[in-house]
């Protein structure tokens, strides 16, 4: 029986559906304290004074923390960026001034959450208001500085140049100029908000139960900031209700709970975020503006070069940034064969919530930019959208991009053809003609995207050569427990991706047993889980890095089991086969009735080892394997090298009609084709595609973090920041193709982020619907009010220009 490739029902679901999951906020004890965080109402203000006396006097209050406590007890978090990022002071509480609305200013630990909140509201903070800057271009003028010590708001700038850009432009038959595109600010809304409990005991050990999704990384930032060796820090999680990258960053709040615990004599302190806090202060996706874009094309519409100026807005603190200033380069040419690029990339801080990795992190913005370019050029040159893509798609794999990334495999034309068939492209084209005759605004759009998985941390050195990160790794421990059961632990700390199920499928195939016979430890515990500094769930990498670690560990375990069974059964290892007998999982000698079951093998190693001789001294039946992808440190000067191991792809087609009365875009049909190489579990892949599609559709039509001119977030509840629900999710026709990756042991590619395919697709469909109205789609958010504004002010003339000439006629 082969389990990989089957839609095995998720092992996690029985527990989760029956309410037997254990989430961070489920932790409770009577002696536990509850933390309330007082946050700044201002986006930019100096803290003149803080009076906590009334809060401290409230019965039930155990302690109050302010910036002055934090200054004494914490070292500012390490900044990943080069100068001037190293001058930025980032602490769990604001000390001298606040730089975004919602920034923590004080914290109260009390007997109940209600008392803590009441006490928090008694804290008198006197602020001196400062002018705020929320526009990234204005921020780059440095008239208003967020971090005075850095002396500039600019956190990163570099030029990514590949090929012969100037020559390509001088040889071009057409040059299309697009003055401005903008990718809006949105994030993920996991069902479970951030939460943790912290207990800093008198021995100096600090124990967290939390829902951080990148523990291996967070520990490296958290421990030094709290002046602790890493071994004093224990991070645990059980079930995590979604992360999408946002929960990588919650260590900032975990530190507050820890400091409160220490101040309260080691009592356990719980912090559980509200939804408004989550939307206001947990972390947003990167907002990006693309300026002065020029596209060179040959006479047939093949894009030969692109130059552009990109400004990324990372909010108040860079934190995980400026990694996003590099990560987009994993998908530099998107799915197209463009060889010449000049991208001038700048990142700035603004008085808004800091950004964090968000599903499709940094690549999604760039892929949207590329798809907008392709679409706008197609419209301006009157080339049908599907033909335009077929002219430009990469077709030969493995493909080395201009910046040295290796696209492992793919077949974009086949995906396009399949999606067209699935949605009935020709039928909709005919309906579109009829609709236009009736004055209806109907558009059909294509979005092709990449989901680059298993990244090479060496790309961080392009951004800051001093960073001690490169390569990637994941770790797996597999053992036969005392009763012979197969137990697997990983460093990944899943947040809904089904790691228990897919791991069981791989191990079951390797040991030729049933997946139900395998226990995959739920969650993560740094005290006993195997993990490395790269461990975590992020960057679409589990199917490759996680399962490769599992596979490697299985090979080591099998070798030991063969050695032990061979000794006991007096047989050659080659004669042994794995399987299930009358006494459970076993190894047997082919063609005989001789066998040894897992219980007895475990018994021999763990409790009965006088039966063994010295040749078996290394047999532990408890093995650890570290998977390390074959990466090299990129050439940091040339910004050249392989940044990612695998490239899954998605191709979506949508049919959209703009309601001419309400301006609301309505999705009439939607098809999604996925290629993530060899599929481990089709049901899980299908679920990930559906989730990613819903997330993207929500971002396009409903979700946007809008700030006013003084830095108030105007969309801080689900009334204004409306996530998509089943009530407004369209039917999605789903299909797949498989182009196995040559770079993973099983042909799989990481997937799950989806690369924001609906953002590209719906923008293209809306563009198609509105082009005849003189409108160029320049933004990624298309709520009804935005479409209304766009319809009132056609922008084509002011946004796009085309210069065409006969090549060689100059």
């Amino acid at each position, binding site marked *: 029986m082969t389990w990989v490739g089957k839609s095995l029902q998720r092992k996690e679901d029985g527990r989760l559906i029956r309410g037997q999951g254990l989430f961070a906020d489920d932790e409770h004890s009577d002696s536990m304290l509850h933390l309330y965080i007082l946050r700044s*109402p*201002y*986006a930019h203000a100096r803290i003149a004074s803080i009076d906590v006396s009334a809060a401290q006097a409230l019965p039930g209050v155990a302690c109050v923390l302010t910036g002055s406590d934090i200054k004494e007890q914490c070292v500012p978090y390490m900044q990943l960026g080069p100068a001037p990022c190293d001058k930025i002071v980032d602490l769990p509480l604001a000390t001298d001034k606040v730089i975004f*609305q919602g920034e923590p200013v004080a914290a109260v630990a009390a007997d109940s959450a209600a008392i803590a909140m009441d006490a928090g*509201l008694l804290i008198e903070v006197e*602020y001196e*208001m400062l002018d705020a800057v929320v526009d990234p271009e204005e921020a780059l003028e440095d008239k208003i500085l967020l971090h005075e010590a850095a002396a500039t708001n600019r956190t990163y700038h570099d030029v990514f140049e590949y090929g012969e850009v100037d020559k390509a432009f001088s040889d071009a038959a057409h040059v299309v100029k697009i003055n401005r595109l903008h990718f809006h600010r949105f994030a993920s809304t996991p069902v479970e908000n951030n939460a943790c409990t912290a207990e800093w005991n008198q021995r100096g050990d600090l124990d967290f139960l939390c829902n951080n999704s990148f523990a291996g990384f967070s520990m490296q930032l958290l421990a030094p900031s709290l002046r602790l060796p890493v071994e004093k820090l224990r991070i645990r999680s059980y079930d995590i209700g979604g992360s999408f990258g946002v929960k990588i960053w919650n260590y900032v709040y975990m530190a507050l709970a820890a400091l409160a615990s220490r101040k309260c004599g080691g009592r356990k302190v719980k912090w559980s975020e509200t939804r*408004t806090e989550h939307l*206001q202060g947990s972390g947003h996706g990167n907002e990006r503006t693309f300026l002065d874009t020029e596209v060179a094309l040959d006479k047939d519409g093949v894009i030969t070069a692109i130059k552009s100026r990109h400004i990324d807005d990372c909010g108040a603190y860079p934190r995980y940034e400026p990694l996003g200033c590099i990560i987009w380069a994993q998908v530099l040419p998107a799915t197209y064969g463009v060889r010449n690029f000049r991208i001038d990339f700048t990142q700035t801080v603004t008085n808004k919530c800091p950004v964090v990795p968000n599903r499709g992190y940094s690549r999604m913005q760039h892929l949207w930019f590329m798809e907008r370019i392709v679409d706008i050029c197609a419209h301006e040159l009157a080339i049908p959208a599907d033909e335009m893509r077929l002219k430009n798609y990469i077709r030969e794999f493995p493909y080395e991009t201009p910046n040295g990334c290796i696209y492992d495999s793919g077949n974009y034309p086949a995906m396009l053809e399949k999606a067209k068939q699935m949605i009935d492209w020709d039928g909709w084209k005919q309906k579109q003609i009829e609709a236009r005759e009736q004055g209806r605004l109907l558009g059909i759009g294509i979005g092709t995207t990449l989901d680059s998985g298993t990244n090479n941390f060496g790309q961080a050195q392009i951004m800051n050569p001093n960073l001690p990160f490169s390569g990637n790794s994941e770790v797996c421990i597999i053992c036969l427990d005392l009763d012979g059961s197969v137990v697997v632990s990983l460093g990944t700390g899943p947040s809904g991706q089904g790691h228990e199920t897919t791991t069981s499928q791989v191990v079951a195939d390797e040991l030729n047993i049933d997946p139900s016979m395998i226990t995959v430890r739920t969650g993560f515990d740094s005290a006993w889980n195997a993990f490395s500094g790269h461990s975590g769930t992020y960057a679409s990498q589990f199917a490759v890095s996680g399962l490769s670690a599992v596979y490697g560990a299985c090979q080591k375990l099998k070798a030991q089991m063969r050695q032990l069974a061979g000794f006991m059964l007096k047989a050659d290892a080659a004669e042994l086969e794995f399987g299930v007998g009358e006494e459970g999982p076993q190894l047997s000698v082919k063609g005989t009735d001789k066998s040894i079951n897992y219980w007895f093998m475990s018994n021999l190693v763990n409790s009965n080892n006088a039966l063994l001789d010295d040749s078996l001294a290394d047999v532990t039946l408890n093995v650890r394997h570290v998977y390390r992808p074959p990466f090299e440190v990129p050439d940091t000067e040339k910004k050249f090298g392989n940044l990612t191991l695998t490239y899954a792809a998605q191709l979506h087609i949508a049919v959209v009609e703009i309601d001419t009365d309400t301006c609301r875009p309505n999705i009439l049909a939607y098809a999604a084709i996925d290629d993530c190489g060899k599929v481990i579990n089709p049901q899980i892949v299908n679920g990930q595609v559906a989730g990613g599609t819903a997330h993207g559709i929500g971002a396009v039509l409903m979700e946007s973090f809008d700030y*006013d*001119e*003084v*830095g*108030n*977030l*105007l*969309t*801080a*509840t689900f*009334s*204004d920041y409306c996530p998509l629900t089943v009530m407004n999710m369209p039917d999605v026709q789903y299909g797949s193709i498989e182009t196995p990756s040559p770079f993973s042991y099983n042909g799989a590619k990481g997937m799950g982020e989806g690369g924001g395919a609906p953002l590209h697709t719906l923008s293209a469909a809306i563009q198609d619907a509105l082009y005849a109205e003189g409108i160029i789609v320049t933004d990624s958010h298309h709520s009804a009010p935005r479409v209304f504004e766009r319809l009132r002010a056609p922008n084509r003339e002011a946004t796009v220009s085309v210069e065409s000439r006969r090549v060689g006629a100059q």
Partner: protein
Amino acid sequence: MAIRFDGEFTVATSRAEAFAILSEMQKFVPLLPTYKSHEIKEDGSADLKIRVGVGKIRGTGTINLKLTQCRPPVHASYLGKGKVMGSVFNLLAEFELADAGAGETRVQWSGELIMFGKLVSLAGGMIKPIANKDIARMIEAIRLALSGEEVAVPQLADTTGKPAGTGWLGKLRALMSKLAKIVRGFLRIQQ
């Protein structure tokens, strides 16, 4: 969220009389919208309590109001710093008085209300129309006061979007009021 406002009106009052009301804290503060109570402090500023309501969010806010510029009888400026339900706001209101002839005074008013914090975030787009309505109410109250007309007690703005008396509570009140009238009428007849 910043709301700027300006305009002018003319009142049949002398400039000195108008200025006396505009620059006198005791007389001026009750004219603020949704005024509840106030206390004059030693430094001459006033601590006010106001009622605040945005949709279903209801509470009491506090403002410290200072007369920052006083040039009789031509100019008065107030600066207010307020707090309400986890939010803060700054209010600047300026009044320029000019003789309009025939014993009348032209009052030019301008100012800015800047709000920060949770209330703005939670109430989103509802704040601006409510604030504009309250500013209009404040100006009207000032105009009436300067004209020597009776000033109605400022009420909390109805932000539910329903005409008064159309909710179930309003209907109940209307019904009770009718019943009371009937009972009073009945009692009068009995007397």
